[in-house]
């Protein structure tokens, strides 16, 4: 029966020009957005490559300079530029970069990757300085958002689904074939259900094809990323099922095609625009983000007060005799500079914590209320798959902070002991190694989101097929 209905539905689709328009739009949008994503990721990779090359070149240059100076060459670059001073080397010349390479499927969603830095310059500055890193971007581009596959899937595909399915039952009435169908020995519910099922399968098989072809053309290895690809396709199929079920539900009420279209577009507006905006306003009210501005003055205040405390460094040396310099050079202020930075950083720990906690509370609240809007769920899912969501960046921040401590802890003893920085020390400077968090498609939040949408879709279909029984040739 299903094949029978499908065959005739296919014939009627083929005869209708709008079907080809929808398919052409779908392929155009998917491939354009993937192409844009490829360009974006290529730029990021190019930048990271340039950084690595520059860092390599710098270290080569300084290795030579350091060995020359330590061999006795006269250096006239001033003492701020002296690479054999561990403080000045670690503070500027020997900066290491901590980078976050884009994940293989990063082309599908921009997520937070345009706002959050994907590389940090690590020096002996305070950890707070890392928060001032920002990638350069035109604010209007940030404000508008990007044309990525996530945008196409979450915002535009539902409109295509609505266009494909808004009049499956109502068109029968308008064409006058409804009484014919109702007089069949197969129920309208079965016929309508099968038509929806057929169109759902057709739409998604084509969509899958376009996505897979697009990813292949983009150079993504499908086998290596099978888990993410699988998660992506499952999410897309379930999200599509949700929208098809909404279309089925609206059709089952029995209004005319035009009113169906209007209702479906209104539902789209509600879920895509109003609910996220209202939720955003509410989250801002309940958990407003603390301002970093207030920290600036506070941090300076602390630094100034600590600077007045002249014997703090003396006491530090008494507590850590192993760090006392063999031959103290009173002109060398680097130890006290590093020490005061450490002090300020420690005193600002509490405030830094407050930021992290507040951000986490906001995320939790959004998680709780995301159930009101499948668009929020879907965007978070796609960001997970692309590794451009908040979790990846907060994890990266943690890794960077840990590396920053390691970097500083390497230089600190050298600075305090006022040792000469030599080639051996240069070789030993710790390098940043990024450990990508495991992608767990079946993890609690990811899986539960998918199951929730699946249930919504099934509930919609169930209610719709129940209501279809009540359809009659007369308008409601």
């Amino acid at each position: 029966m299903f094949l029978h209905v499908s065959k005739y539905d296919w014939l009627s689709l083929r005869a209708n020009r709008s079907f080809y328009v929808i398919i052409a739009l779908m392929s155009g949008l998917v491939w354009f957005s993937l192409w844009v994503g490829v360009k974006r990721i290529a730029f990021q990779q190019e930048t990271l490559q340039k950084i690595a090359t520059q860092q390599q070149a710098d270290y080569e240059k300084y290795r030579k300079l350091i060995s020359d100076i330590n061999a006795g060459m006269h250096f006239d670059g001033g003492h701020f530029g002296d690479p054999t001073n561990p403080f000045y080397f670690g503070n500027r010349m020997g900066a290491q970069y901590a980078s976050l390479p884009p994940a293989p499927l990063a082309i599908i969603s921009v997520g937070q990757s345009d706002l959050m830095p994907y590389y940090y310059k690590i020096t002996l500055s305070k950890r707070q300085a890392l928060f001032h890193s920002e990638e350069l971007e035109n604010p209007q581009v940030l404000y508008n958002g990007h044309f990525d596959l996530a945008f196409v899937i979450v915002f535009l595909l539902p409109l295509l689904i609505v266009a494909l399915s808004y009049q499956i039952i109502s068109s029968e009435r308008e064409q006058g074939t409804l009484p014919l169908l109702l007089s069949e020995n197969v129920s309208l519910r079965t016929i309508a259900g099968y038509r929806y099922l057929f169109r759902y399968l057709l739409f998604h098989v084509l969509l899958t094809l376009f996505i897979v072809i697009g990813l292949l053309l983009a150079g993504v290895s499908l086998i290596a990323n099978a888990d993410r690809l699988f998660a992506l396709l499952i999410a897309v199929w379930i999200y599509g099922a949700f929208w098809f079920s909404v279309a089925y539900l609206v059709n089952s009420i029995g209004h005319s095609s035009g009113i169906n279209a209007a209702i479906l577009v209104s539902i789209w507006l509600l879920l895509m625009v109003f609910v996220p905006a209202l939720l955003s306003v509410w989250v801002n009210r309940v958990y407003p983000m603390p301002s970093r501005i207030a920290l600036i003055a506070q941090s300076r205040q602390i630094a100034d007060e600590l600077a007045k405390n002249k014997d703090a460094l003396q006491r530090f040396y008494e507590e850590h005799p192993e760090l006392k310099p063999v031959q103290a050079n009173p002109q060398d202020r680097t130890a006290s500079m590093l020490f005061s930075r450490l002090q300020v950083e420690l005193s600002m720990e509490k405030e830094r914590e407050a930021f992290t906690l507040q951000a986490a509370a906001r995320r939790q609240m959004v998680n709780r209320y995301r159930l009101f809007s499948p668009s929020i769920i879907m965007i978070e899912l796609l960001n997970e798959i692309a590794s451009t969501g908040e979790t990846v960046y907060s994890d990266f921040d943690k890794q960077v902070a840990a590396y920053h401590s390691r970097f500083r802890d390497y230089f600190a003893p050298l600075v305090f002991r006022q040792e000469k920085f030599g080639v051996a020390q240069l070789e030993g400077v710790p390098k940043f190694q990024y450990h990508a968090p495991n992608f767990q498609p079946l993890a609690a939040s990811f899986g539960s989101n998918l199951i929730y949408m699946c249930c919504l879709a099934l509930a919609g279909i169930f209610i719709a097929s129940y209501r279809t029984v009540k359809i009659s040739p007369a308008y409601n």
Partner: protein
Amino acid sequence: MIRTIFNKEITDFRQDRRSWLITAVLYLLFALGLSEGYRYYIETTTIHELAARESYEQWLSQGKKNPHAAAHYGFYVFKPLSPLSILDKGMESYLGQTVWLEAHNQNEVKERQANDAGSLARIGEFSAGLVWYMILPLAIILLGFNLFNKERENGTLRFWLSSQVSIGQILIGKWLALYIWSLVLLLPMLAAATLTIAVANAAIMKLYLGRLLLLFVALLAYVAFWTLATLLVSFYTHQPSIALTLLIGFWALGCFFVPRLSSTIAKVVYPAPSSFEFSENIRLDIELGLDRQTPAKARQKHLQDSLLAQYGVDSIHQLPINYTGAMLQYNEDYGYRVFEKNYGQLHYVYRQQDKVMEWSSLLSPPLAMRHLMVHLSGTGLVRHLHFAQQAETHRRLIVKTMNDDIMNNGAGKRVYENDDKLWRKIPPFVYRIPSLAHDAPYAAIPLFALGLWLFLAVWWLMRPLMVQKVVEI
């Protein structure tokens, strides 16, 4: 005759449950947006003013130190929010708020609020301005999509046409009714907004009155466009539902699709450098010279030679001025050229990208209105760069004052210090708002686009008004 049609339509609106539902939702969203805007403005302004005072106090209480060390300490200045940001934040979330004025470095204006806001902020931000340029057209569409073709549906068009009334009169009467009704919706919102801005900052209000008026006039034109477009689509379609779908499709395309597409195109046509490349260029320009062939050491030697020649002495120790002060100022001046070149290039690229995005308002009236609002309110990149420019001028004042002091009073001294008598010479930073004449040219493209849309709608209306075509019943 037009009067009668007008009255009839107004009565229809008054009696339609739909109108009251739309009004209620519209006002609810507007109240929400306006209160959000007010809260944001008051909070941010308070924080900024406090922080600016604190930072300046810290500058004054530095105690005795070498003026160059003081220049290194510097102080922070904060970008004041435009009071019209109560209407719409514009790009403010994505623009920095504060810049550190220190020696040797022209820093970027930092602390984007969006960085902390999380992913939800990208999906939905709400404001009164958004209600005006995005939700109000939707309300107009929902009110008026069947304004003309309901007559067709109900069969009353025959009666109209068989009477003495002309098509032109019908259209004008209906349009006037829809327009006046929309104005009745809009005007209380404009009044509430003006009142809120006045309450938030009455002093500055005077300076922004011209912009506010211009914005309101533009809104009136914008509403005129949407009412005309809705009526026309209603006139040319047979079924109200098709009219609704077409209008909402046009609205959705303009609000969601065009902006993202335009920023993608802008980035492709005018690519901007990464943060790394930008700072590397600055570093290399300073180390190796702007032509990459005059390294810092060569420049220093050149300065030394010219100073020795100027004062006719043989060594820097015999100079009547402090050589260090002179060298510092020379390096700063070179640094200014480097920053001007690099920031200039970057801002040029951004401006070109903005122009591409503004031209795309030819495809989207809501986008045109949004751009216009951003320019008139001073919540975009133009205002941001204007602030950055004034901050930089203040920074150069700090640096020059410190260096001049060393140069003139520090000659021959090994250790030279000064105290807050010198620090007080630097006044606190006060941002001067640009005049409307300064900002208006930037709004040219969206104004033109809006005007074009309105012109098209009016021209399209002229056809049924002036050409006696056969109206399909």
